[in-house]
């Protein structure tokens, strides 16, 4: 009976509408080498080719992710330093592609965190005042939300855009103090005590705000992907 029912799959039926989060959840939930999401599949394939010393694969990876890495670096550093760090990140991928481990997350996560880490090293070694402290009036999260609402195509509900919007919304739901503390920690590479000093707030308040803000983001991502699976 089942076979009879399924055999009518062919010829093809019109495309079934699929909830956007679903595709991504499938992709993220697949840690076994399956390839449900073309974006992820292509990233993995590019990394494999980079290991085989294929320079065109590195260029393709750059085209795909450089803008995300640059955005992170620009949030932390001035423009010329940010450009240098982006170059360093992709050169590192070329020199040490084996450092990327599939089990630790997506390629984009790896690249943006690598960019953030390199930028943080620069910040700490330079001893310069944190750029993010000078951007106090610049609310990147609200700006992204506003930008998305202004330019977003309501019909373009691809999995990646859906996730971006979900994360941005989740961060926008934090109170301003939580978001500021997280941003100073993440993009300012500042310790709790440095943040407390910069904001003139008690250390305990800062710690609580960062903790609660990140827990909110984690729970929100759990709801997006389904608990227990995320890349």
């Amino acid at each position: 009976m089942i076979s009879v029912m399924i055999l009518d799959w062919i010829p093809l039926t019109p495309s079934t509408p699929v909830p956007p989060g679903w595709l991504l959840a499938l992709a993220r939930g697949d840690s076994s080498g399956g390839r449900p999401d073309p974006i992820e599949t292509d990233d993995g394939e590019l990394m494999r080719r980079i290991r085989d010393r294929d320079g065109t694969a590195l260029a393709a990876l750059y085209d795909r992710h450089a803008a995300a890495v640059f955005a992170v670096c620009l949030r932390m550093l001035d423009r010329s330093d940010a450009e240098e760090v982006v170059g360093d990140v992709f050169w590192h991928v070329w020199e040490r592609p084996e450092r990327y481990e599939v089990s630790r997350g997506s390629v984009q996560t790896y690249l943006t965190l690598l960019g953030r880490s390199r930028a943080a090293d620069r910040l700490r070694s330079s001893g310069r005042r944190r750029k993010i402290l000078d951007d106090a009036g610049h609310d990147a999260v609200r700006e992204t939300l506003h930008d998305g609402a202004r330019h977003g195509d309501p019909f373009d509900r691809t999995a990646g855009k859906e996730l971006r919007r979900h994360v941005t919304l989740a961060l926008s739901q934090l109170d301003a103090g939580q978001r500021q503390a997280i941003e100073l920690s993440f993009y300012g590479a500042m310790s709790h005590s440095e943040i407390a000093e910069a904001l003139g707030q008690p250390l305990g308040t800062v710690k609580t705000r960062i903790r609660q803000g990140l827990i909110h983001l984690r729970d929100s991502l759990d709801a997006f992907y389904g608990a227990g699976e995320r890349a």
Partner: protein
Amino acid sequence: MTCDERRDDMLLYVADALDRGERQSLDAHLASGCPRCAGHLVEASSVLGHLPLALAPVEPPPRLRERLVQRVAADRKRSSVTMFPARGSWLIGWGRPAVTAALAAGLLYALVVLPLRERQRALDAELTAQQRTIDELRGELVAARSAIDMLASRDLKLALLASGGPQAEAWGRLLRDERSRVWQLYTFDLQPLGPDRTYELWFITDDDRKIPAGTFDVDAAGRGRHQVTVPRDLEGIVVAAVTDEPAGGSPQPTGQIQLVARL
């Protein structure tokens, strides 16, 4: 402190926002090999990794890309550089001592440098191969832990997939954790496909929608494993099936049904 409590601390750990004492305590716990906290660490890294998504991407200037491409090209050229210079007229002008020196240098290259470089290449290749093996083993470890966790679940359901096509010996098991919504598919005796084809899992709902649930490959022994997390808002799955599809998968089934189960 319990591992559940450490889950929250792990967020601060990866944000580099713990006091030294707290960090050392977590370091020690992680070093003890606690699998749950290793999972929490991966989860926390992932949460932090999502923060940049809230930033609007900014295109770097084109010269940055050009510089990278040139650097890569130079690196590739350097690694395949010719060991001996082309013959030229300079030999005549410098006479015999120069020729002797050049020959000695050539001999040095041939006897010392070349074998060393060859050895280095072999070691590099070996290192790369070992790194791949480590990556594969790490992936298998993650999969094994995930399977053990699932088998320990009180909400586990099992379905047997039978052959639905020409591969009469093929079969599979679908483990469904109804609480976490993580489903794991194990297949056996499926023939490995060529590079242009792949196996794809499908869910069919009671209103006859065919939902693609990811692609997977099988090893030389015909064994495959695939895991998906089923969204909570997707209800009414009554059938799971596996077809063979073009590499990369299809949005709707086009290939032959290989395995099928009513759930």
